[in-house]
Each structure stands twice: as C-alpha cells, then as structure tokens.
C-alpha cells in the first residue's frame, strides 16, 4: 500500500493505543499514525502497523510487517502494552487514492475496538464518522462467508476460551470457572444443559 509521506507531528511511547486514537479524533487529524508495539519489539518480533484517518476518523489499517490490510491487518499489530505512536499529517487530497483501496478499509470504530478494546471510544468514533460510513462492515455476503468458515470460527472460539481462562487467573476468578471449560468438545453438552441449568452447574 502506498501512503504519501506526511509531516511528523509527534512520536512518543504511550501506554495504550486508545490515548492516541482519542487525541487524533479530538484534533480531527487527516493523516496517519504508525503504531509500533514495544513488547513485541522486545521479544524480537518486529510489529508495525499504520492506520489512516480522515478528520479524526480511521479509514484504512495495514500491517506493514505481514502486509495485510483491513480488520485482519489491525489484529496483526493489536498487542497489549505500550506502543510507539508516530502521528503524521497528510493533505486530504493526497490520501484520496489510498483510501480507495476497499480491501484495507476498516469500519470507523474498529481500531479503537481491536487495538485498544475501548468500546466507548469505538462508539464515539462511529458517531463522529460521516453518515455514509456508520454502516460500514454490514455486507451480507461477507457475513455469510464468515459464518461458512467453520475453521476460522473455531479459531476465534478457542482463542476466546484460552483468553477467558488466562484472565480468570489474573482476576482471581479461577474458582468459578466451569470444570469442563477447557474441553472444546463439550459445546454440544453446554447447549443441552441450557434447558436445565441448576444451581449446581458451577
């Protein structure tokens, strides 16, 4: 992806991406931010991504290391912890061509959600987006293809299961985890059990 080089406004390490996304939204930046998660760097895994903005609202996302764009690209540089954020301003006309690349576009609230897990900011960003962009990401055929990909869905589910268990330890909620929660094959049982959930179920 080619993005015209912009004028560097500032570059600093921040605790999380939300702070940068919020500032950029407030100052209605047209340009791009390069994110470099610091923990990944320390681990010797160079990770870097770019999000472009129009009037403070994210338009494109691109993982420059893996060369993947769009929501998948975002996930490539969504690493928790401190990140170096270099904010660049670019003239809107100069970005127009790059912003035509449909495959790299992301819904307005997606960077806040994926990079920072900040739903409030995601909602505010969506509200600030032009009316025509608020419904982005609502493509029925994309939804149907997503649901048809059973392997990808199982991956989302198993990652979420692992994350839930890891966080339960972090939060001291181990004792309320269901015994069978780490067994992926119990899903059908769980559904059946929904009919009769007794107090003993946890």
């Amino acid at each position, binding site marked *: 992806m080619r993005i015209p080089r912009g004028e560097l406004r500032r570059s600093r390490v921040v605790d999380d991406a939300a702070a940068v996304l919020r500032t950029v939204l407030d100052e209605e930046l047209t340009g791009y931010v390069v994110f470099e998660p610091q923990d990944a760097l320390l681990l010797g895994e160079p990770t870097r991504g770019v999000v472009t903005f129009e009037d403070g609202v994210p338009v494109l996302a691109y993982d420059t290391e893996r060369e993947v764009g769009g*929501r998948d690209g975002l996930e490539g540089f969504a690493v928790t912890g401190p990140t170096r954020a270099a904010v660049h301003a670019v003239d809107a006309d100069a970005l127009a061509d790059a912003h035509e690349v449909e495959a790299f576009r992301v819904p307005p609230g997606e960077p806040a959600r994926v990079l920072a897990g900040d739903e409030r900011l995601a909602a505010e960003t969506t509200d600030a987006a032009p009316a025509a962009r608020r419904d982005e990401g609502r493509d029925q055929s994309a939804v149907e293809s*997503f649901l048809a990909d059973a392997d990808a869905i199982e991956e989302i589910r198993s990652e*979420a299961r692992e994350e839930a268990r890891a*966080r339960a330890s972090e939060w*001291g909620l181990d004792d309320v985890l269901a015994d069978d*929660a780490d067994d992926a094959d119990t899903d059908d049982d769980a559904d059946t059990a*929904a009919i009769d959930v007794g107090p003993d179920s946890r």
Partner: protein
Amino acid sequence: MVEAFAVASGKGGTGKTTSTLALGMALAEDYDVTVIDADTGMANLLFHAGLDDADVTLHDLLVDERDAAVSDAVYERFGMSVVPCGTSLTAFEAADPGRLRDVVAELAADTDVLLLDSPAALGSKSAVLPVVLADRIVVVLQPTVPSLSDGLKVQEYAHSYGTDTAGVVFNRVRPDENVDRIAEQAGRYFGGQTLASVPESDAVRAARREGKPLLAHAPDGPAADAFREAAARLDVCDGDGREVAERFKNAVVPERI
C-alpha cells in the same frame, strides 16, 4: 423462582440497553422483573428509563462503607424494578465490582427474572462479572462480522464460567438484510435459539430521547413486537430464589479488579 440473564454483546452499538429494557417490559407481563444496569463503567440505562435524576444508584451500593440500602437504588418503572447505575467516573473508580455479587444476591431473593445489562467489553473483571453471575446469557447481535465475532467471544467467556446461552437476538436489522439465512448459519455456533430479529427503527432513538423504554414509547411498532416475541421464546427456568441468592453469595469473587 428466579433466573438471572446477562444481556451481552461483547461489542458496543448493538442496542443492548434497549434490548434489556424491552425484554424486561415484555417479561414483566408474566413475571416480577428486576433490571440492573451492570455496565458500571458506561452506564446509560438510566437515560433509557427516565431515571437521569436518580439519587441513589448501583454505584452507591458498590462502594466501601456504603450507607445506602439496596432497596434505595430500586425504582419501580414501567412495571419493572429498575436498578440504574450512575455515570460518574469517580464513583466507578471507587466502586468495588466484587460487591455486585451481594447486590445481585439480595435482589434475587425477591424477583422472578433478573436481567443484567452487561458491559460491551471483556477487558476487566467488572466487565465480565455479570456474565459470571448470570444463569444464562442473551446475546444481542447485529448481522455484521465484527458483531458476530465479538458475540462468539462473549459466549465463550460465558461458557467458561458455566453460563449457558439462552438465545440470540438479532437487533437493528435493516430491511435489505436476510437474517433468516444468517441466523441459520449462526445457529451452528451459538447456543440456545434465535429469539427474534428486530428491525432497525427510528422509534428506538425517539424512545431514548424521551427517556422511555421502546415498549413504552412505541408499543405497537414492529421492533416492539419482535422483542415481545423474543421474550415469549425465552423459557424462564424455575429456580429457587433462596438457592440462587445463596449461590451468588458463595460465588468466589475476591477483592478488586
């Protein structure tokens, strides 16, 4: 009898609070319903229920050395008992999420159905607690990839804590979207049943502006009908209120986030 449902989405903007109050009003025709705004970090149920000026809220019940009784934060509105949450960030920071368990336990002793409006996030203990404490979750989805993906995640979190899925509500569905096909596909991954497909409606925004739940503002509209259909499909399990209250009290939820 009592069953606690967490109304969850994992993602913002799906209309979770609207859904919680709509399901609550519909269920209130047959049951004693208590609705709790368990989204302690981003409360907005109070605006939907005309409780902007509520003196005592859930926040007051979650602080150390509180002097408010649980009943002080319960407001009888639209045929339901409503426990709003305040919007002050300072109050949120002072709140101890672990105390939610005690509050829910006390409320469970005296109601048929508890609905917990849950945070649209999974990143903190306070955000996950409603899903931990509930018997089942109702997942509110929009027919979009991010919403379905986040809905799957919240469901996995719930299942990890032994909380099953009661069903899925497709909300804010646009006229050009064929939710039947999506629902059929999604049914392979989500537990429970498709409870309803609720059309996108201007009445929802108007209701919010008026500070009324959708079913009070536009009871005869298609969105209200769909929520009533969802409530009718939601077979509320018989449970012993005291046992549920006891379970909440015993749920191991130590200190702070």
